[in-house]
């Protein structure tokens, strides 16, 4: 029964992933015949060199970027929800994404460049930016841990996360006021969210870091399940709660920071996808939840990417799409919270 449901769900999510990836390959702002796309992907090339460049250097990297970003943000959300025992936690709502964004902004200014102009091909500079994002996310996570020890209320922690977001965005605006006009423009467009920002040369770093962190999260299923019972029970089951929490938040910080640095602060995916996974599997058991969350996250992000490129009048920002998918799901969950098992 529940195991069957798990297998069926994983197969469905995987099929959906393949379909969405193919759709993202075929559809886009430039119409390319399917036959040519197949030839290009198979390595036979195409008569139209521009098509080759679009498929190999734009569409395929975008598919990989979106799928990995969706998986990364969703796992971040899952780990935050379990760690803080809070079903409405997520990397954007708790301010982790904005912390990473602030880190990015500060590094760019410190490097003497204009604010924005993000992630050039220079390995040193984008590593510095990644590090900045990581520091920013890390600082916010430390603040959250400190406050979670003082304020026991889940709602209060969410409000603190929102306050952190306001604070970081005001600091970013202050930085903007001393940045060049071009820098401000770049920063604003980065804030819209975008899966086309990872080039072929940056892909190994981006994909490598995310995949390692995702594997790390899959190795934490045992303590994650113990944490479902609260810290006292987890301790009684032999879990070192403080160390476990630090590892989980480190993984969350890395995943959120990498995605935010490369794709901008993307909202809602991290909050919503763990719920989609729980509802479709009917369980909070992390050994099943982690794989399903990774796949469902990749699916949702590819869906957003597909919508964003299918507009004939230009690309729609990702952050204009995620709330349209995310808000109805969150409202459904809030309204039905008494019926949904995992709240009680």
């Amino acid at each position, binding site marked *: *029964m*529940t195991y069957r449901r798990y297998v069926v769900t994983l197969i469905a999510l995987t099929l959906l992933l393949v379909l969405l990836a193919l759709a993202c390959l075929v559809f886009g702002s430039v119409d390319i015949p399917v036959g040519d796309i197949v030839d290009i992907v198979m390595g036979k090339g195409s008569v139209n060199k521009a098509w080759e460049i679009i498929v190999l250097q734009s569409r395929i990297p975008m598919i990989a970027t979106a799928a990995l970003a969706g998986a990364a943000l969703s796992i971040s959300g899952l780990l935050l929800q*379990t760690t803080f*025992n809070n079903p409405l936690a997520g990397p954007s709502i708790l301010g982790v994404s904005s912390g990473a964004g602030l880190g990015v902004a500060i590094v760019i200014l410190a490097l003497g460049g204009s604010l924005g102009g993000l992630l050039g091909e220079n390995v040193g500079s984008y590593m510095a930016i990644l590090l900045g994002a990581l520091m920013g996310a890390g600082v916010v996570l430390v603040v959250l841990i400190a406050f979670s020890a003082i304020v026991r209320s889940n709602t209060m922690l969410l409000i603190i996360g929102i306050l952190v977001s306001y604070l970081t965005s005001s600091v970013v605006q202050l930085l903007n006021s001393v940045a060049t006009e071009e820098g401000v423009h770049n920063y604003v467009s980065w804030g819209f969210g975008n899966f086309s920002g990872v080039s072929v040369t940056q892909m190994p770093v981006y994909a490598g870091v995310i995949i390692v962190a995702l594997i790390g999260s899959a*190795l934490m*299923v*045992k303590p994650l*399940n*113990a944490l*479902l*019972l*609260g810290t*006292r*029970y987890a*301790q*009684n*089951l*032999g*879990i*070192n709660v403080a160390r476990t929490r630090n590892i989980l938040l480190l993984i969350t910080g890395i995943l959120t920071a990498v995605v935010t640095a490369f794709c901008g602060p993307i909202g809602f995916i991290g909050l919503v996808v763990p719920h989609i996974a*729980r509802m479709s599997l*009917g*369980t*909070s*058991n992390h*050994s099943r939840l982690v794989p399903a969350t990774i796949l469902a996250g990749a699916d949702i992000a590819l869906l957003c990417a597909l919508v964003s490129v299918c507009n004939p009048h230009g690309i729609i920002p990702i952050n204009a799409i995620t709330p349209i998918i995310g808000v109805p799901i969150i409202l459904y969950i809030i309204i039905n919270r008494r019926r*949904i*098992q*995992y*709240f*009680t």
Partner: protein
Amino acid sequence: MNPHKPIFTTHDLAVGYRKGKNTVTLLRGLNLVLEKGKLVALLGQNGAGKSTLLRALTSDEPPLNGSIEVDGKNLMDLSQKDRSRLIGLVSTERIQAGALTVTELVGLGRQPHTGFLGRLDDEDREIIRQSMADAGIIGKADDYVASLSDGERQKAMIARALAQQTPIIILDEPTAFLDVASRIETMRLLQTLAHDRGKAVLLSSHDISQSLMLADELWLITTDRQVITGTTTELVADGAMNRLFTNKSIHFNNQILDYSF
């Protein structure tokens, strides 16, 4: 062999809490002995220090003074893993496990015995099944925890502690939210676990009359912060029951084994 071998002893134990820079000592000089095969009830009025004492015994808080010895070893010297194999806990903490099945919840009790990823083998599954049967919750094995009544949930949590296979089980107010029928059922279950399975079971309770009837031994925290131990008969004969509450208008009635006013 003595079936009531001491398994848990405290030596000059002091417990309390830290409030800012100050330390508030609630109970001191405790020399308590918990024996295998016995059901012990810890009684005392609110704020007397029941939960604080239990938190020290489960090593959730370090003792302010003195030591706790489990199976001949100092509790604080043991690793968390070793402790998790000696003491099973049932507390009133809110759990977020509504979307686990009872089997999955009870399976979490195997964590101290499983490997890095927590995979269960056939032996684990048999222990889980047996624990659910012993706790009388096997009929709900495939149900969601969220669908259980309060009494059933408590049985599931007790089954989880059984699956942990610890010689000692400590329960913080296990009957607090239960109706009378479930309370009696839970107490009977704990009594069986002590008498038939040889577990040392320690529980805190507000339910004086049931504790007096079913526990093998009582630990009373008196209003002057002493802990008096003994059987119901001994303590009732001593008049110790009248040292439990500050309110002078209630007194213990030896005939009905309960308080009246």
